[in-house]
């Protein structure tokens, strides 16, 4: 490895880009493949397969053994709504290794007293997400019940391919939401990907239990993406 590759690797990791480092084990030759350049790489197929799981490994090729090392960003959770559920959810999510960001334009909700040791923005989601765009390694949970606040980040999350998109509200609320979002006429966005009502069905009866249900659903989407997808489609 040369220091220039190491530097480029660290810069990509810091900017939350998924990166593969491809090493020919026979002669030590290496190349760096950043997520935007995967399609043009000779090992594009293998790298793409490994992108979601983040698993590194050796592939056998005619040219000998090649080690593909994946570096994927740590999972992030963006919570829209600085409400009671969020207060219970963020420390649990942090304990599971998520980088958590909370966004709520209502300054009475998004206060440092209510949200200690977590990034909390008392701003509109539009503003924050412009600076820190969502990505495929991010989960989004919207919990304000207010379309003015919730709708924009929901569409942004579907557009960015967030690995989890959940929204608080019962089936009727969600049906109205889907109608509203469909009416915005955005193509190529799969509204069925929204998990609503939010959280696994464990009969959660209070904010902390709802937080458990939401976090469990997020972990499932991260660790068993195919299972989560199948149950969404069946629902």
């Amino acid at each position, binding site marked *: *490895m*040369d*220091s220039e590759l*190491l*530097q480029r*690797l*660290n810069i990509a*990791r810091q900017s939350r880009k998924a990166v593969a480092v491809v*090493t020919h*084990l026979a002669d*030590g030759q290496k190349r760096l493949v950043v997520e935007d350049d995967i399609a043009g790489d000779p090992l594009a197929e293998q790298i793409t397969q490994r992108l979601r799981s983040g*698993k*590194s*490994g*050796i592939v056998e090729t005619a040219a000998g053994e090649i*080690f593909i*090392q*994946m570096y994927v960003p740590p999972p992030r959770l963006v919570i829209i709504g600085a409400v009671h559920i969020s207060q219970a959810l963020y420390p649990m999510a*942090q304990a599971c*290794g*998520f*980088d958590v960001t909370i966004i709520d334009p209502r300054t009475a909700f998004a206060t440092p007293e209510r949200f200690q*040791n977590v*990034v909390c923005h008392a701003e509109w989601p539009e503003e924050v997400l412009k600076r820190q765009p969502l990505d495929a390694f991010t989960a989004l949970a919207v919990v304000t019940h207010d379309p003015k606040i919730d709708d924009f980040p929901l569409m942004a999350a579907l557009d960015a391919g967030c690995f989890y998109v959940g929204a608080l509200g019962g089936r009727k609320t969600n049906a109205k939401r889907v109608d509203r979002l469909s009416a915005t006429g955005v193509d190529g966005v799969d509204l069925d990907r929204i998990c609503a009502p939010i959280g696994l069905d464990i009969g959660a009866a209070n904010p902390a239990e709802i937080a458990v249900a939401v976090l469990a659903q997020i972990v499932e989407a991260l660790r068993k993406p195919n299972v989560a997808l199948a149950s969404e489609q069946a629902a």
Partner: protein
Amino acid sequence: MAESPEIDPLAIAQTWQKDGRAIALATVVETWGSAPRPVGSHLVIDQEGNFEGSVSGGCVEGAVVFEAVDAIESGKPKMLEFGVADETAWEVGLSCGGRIRVYVEPVTS
């Protein structure tokens, strides 16, 4: 988490190199059975044998560091393989019964 004290061997590698230290990077490239650290785990080593990170949770780090110092001097990468102690030529092994392959390479400036 931002405050997490988790060690980032690649960031440390860059810092050490900036400080003028000659370094090598060791990476777990393959595991069989119950191996203590997953594929992709890194250990960064300098020419004096200082190291950060882990490739086995402590079982074979000593041998990896020894080989890494050699790789820094020779400038050539090498592949190491560790199994349970009595099954390999190495004097160290994994008590868990697994096997690992570790790729050791100098980081050239």
